[in-house]
């Protein structure tokens, strides 16, 4: 008698536990006899279906669920001994149903119905979000590419990148690296940049670099690389966003070149102002230099002198340095260069305006001006110049007689 009582208690307890489970999770459990008649049903999911155990018990499963055919078939096949799992959508809800043949006394089947509506919804939302993100990525007028931090293999990209690579879709790039792309030439550089970003953990924003396209041409890019971290906080991938700035670059370079030309023209004009050339007569020009002479000014002086020799067909150029305060070896070298340049043009140079101090400095510093014709003042220089071109100054006294 006691044995029977404890067994009875145990059965009651199991039943209560089962009911507790069934009524708190979105599922339902059915038992059907060998003819398919529902002998038991319980579970929270029944509420969502709008059904009660009373409505179902005693009914034939075949009669209750002629549609959809999956349920009908499921019951049938389970009664024949097969365990079946299938997913059915009834109205707004989706259930995952399992039919288990009961091998105990009387036969029949046990059915489990799990409400997976919310799971399905979540999956659909996630898919929609992915689709939307894909649309956003492909709509962006920039290239987006992300790579694995360890292997540098592409994890994904947008349509523009696939286009650049000459491949039909972004999926064709997954698993490949920069070395498999038309821009293989830049691959070492790109991967070095990736490593820098990964190791430092810091993004590199808006830097310019070059890329070889699938047709072999070279483009300019403005690129940003951002490290992406996983749940543990470690950098797991690198996001690369870049846009093609070839056109802007070309325009910018043309602008810069033009700017340079303008600056150069302005400098020339300024140089001309500070390096006046005075033609004193056929074949002789004078260039008075005033102020200090540094490398840049020396270059201007040389250029102005050469231009002057051309313009005035000068055979002799007089460089007057009366107004140059300091003559050291640097200045002497610059003047030497100018004199050599004038000579190569076919003109002889006379340097005038050598003061006592300058003469001493030149000798003391050991500057070799032995080949340079020098005069102390402009007047003597002029006489020497005239002499060189075969002319002589005479006074007008000769012609005075006879008045």
């Amino acid at each position, binding site marked *: 008698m006691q044995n029977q009582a404890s067994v009875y208690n145990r059965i009651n307890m199991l039943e209560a536990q089962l009911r507790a489970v069934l009524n708190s999770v979105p599922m339902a459990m059915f038992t059907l006899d060998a003819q398919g008649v529902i002998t038991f049903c319980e579970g929270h999911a029944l509420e969502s279906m709008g059904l009660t155990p009373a409505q179902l018990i005693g009914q034939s499963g075949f009669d209750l669920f002629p549609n959809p055919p999956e349920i009908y078939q499921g019951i049938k096949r389970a009664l024949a001994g097969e365990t079946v799992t299938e997913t059915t959508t009834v109205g707004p809800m989706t259930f995952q149903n399992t039919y288990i043949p009961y091998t105990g006394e009387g036969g029949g089947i046990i059915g489990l119905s799990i409400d997976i509506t919310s799971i399905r919804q979540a999956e659909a939302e996630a898919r929609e979000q992915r689709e939307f993100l894909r649309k956003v990525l492909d709509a962006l007028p920039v290239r987006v590419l992300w790579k694995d931090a360890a292997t540098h293999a592409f994890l994904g990209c947008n349509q523009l990148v696939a286009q650049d690579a000459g491949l039909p879709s972004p999926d064709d790039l997954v698993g490949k690296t920069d070395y498999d792309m038309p821009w293989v030439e830049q691959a070492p550089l790109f991967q070095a940049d990736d490593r820098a970003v990964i190791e430092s953990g810091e993004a590199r924003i808006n830097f310019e670099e070059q890329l070889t396209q699938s047709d072999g041409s070279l483009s300019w890019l403005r690129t940003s690389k951002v490290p992406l971290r996983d749940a543990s906080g470690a950098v797991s991938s690198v996001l690369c966003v870049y846009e093609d700035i070839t056109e802007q670059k070309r325009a910018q370079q043309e602008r810069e070149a033009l700017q340079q030309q303008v600056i150069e023209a302005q400098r020339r004009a300024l140089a001309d102002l500070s390096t006046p050339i005075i033609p004193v007569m056929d074949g002789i020009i004078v260039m008075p230099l005033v102020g200090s002479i540094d490398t840049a000014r020396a270059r201007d002086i040389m250029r102005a002198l*050469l231009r002057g*020799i051309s313009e005035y*067909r000068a055979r002799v150029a007089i460089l007057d340095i009366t107004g140059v305060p300091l003559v050291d070896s640097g200045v002497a070298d610059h003047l030497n260069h100018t004199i*050599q*340049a004038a*000579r*190569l043009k*076919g003109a002889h140079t006379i340097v005038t305006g050598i003061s006592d101090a300058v003469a001493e400095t030149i000798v003391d510093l050991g500057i070799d001006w032995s080949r340079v014709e020098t005069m102390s003042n402009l007047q003597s220089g002029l006489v020497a110049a005239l002499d060189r071109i*075969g002319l002589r100054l005479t006074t007008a006294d000769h012609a005075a007689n006879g008045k």
Partner: protein
Amino acid sequence: MDSGTIQKLENLLLVAVPRDLTDDEVILMRRDILRAIRAYGSQVVLLDFTQVDICDSFFGRFIYSTSRMVQLMGATVIISGLQDAVIETMVELGMTLPDVEAVLDLDDALALSRRLGRNGSGPAPADGGLPEWEE
């Protein structure tokens, strides 16, 4: 002889140096020059560099070697027509050719060749009435 690049003018041989010169072209040109000197008794060879916009040490060597060869034949090499940018580069390069005389233009070259013609050997100038510079 390529009459396009070598012209005889009185006592002077005018050589227009082309923009780019290969080693072979240098040899041919020098040969033509020496041949012309012998044929015309020219005393001055004017190397005109108007067409040369890049003048590196190869050109410098060309000028020196041509000058030496021409001197052995009793004539002189003078240069003209160097562009300003070329002169600036040569001076900075350190190639100032101090032993080679440069003249401003053809007029000066002719005047110089006439002077040499009067003083030294070689044919006298064809026309004595041309304007000349006093010595």
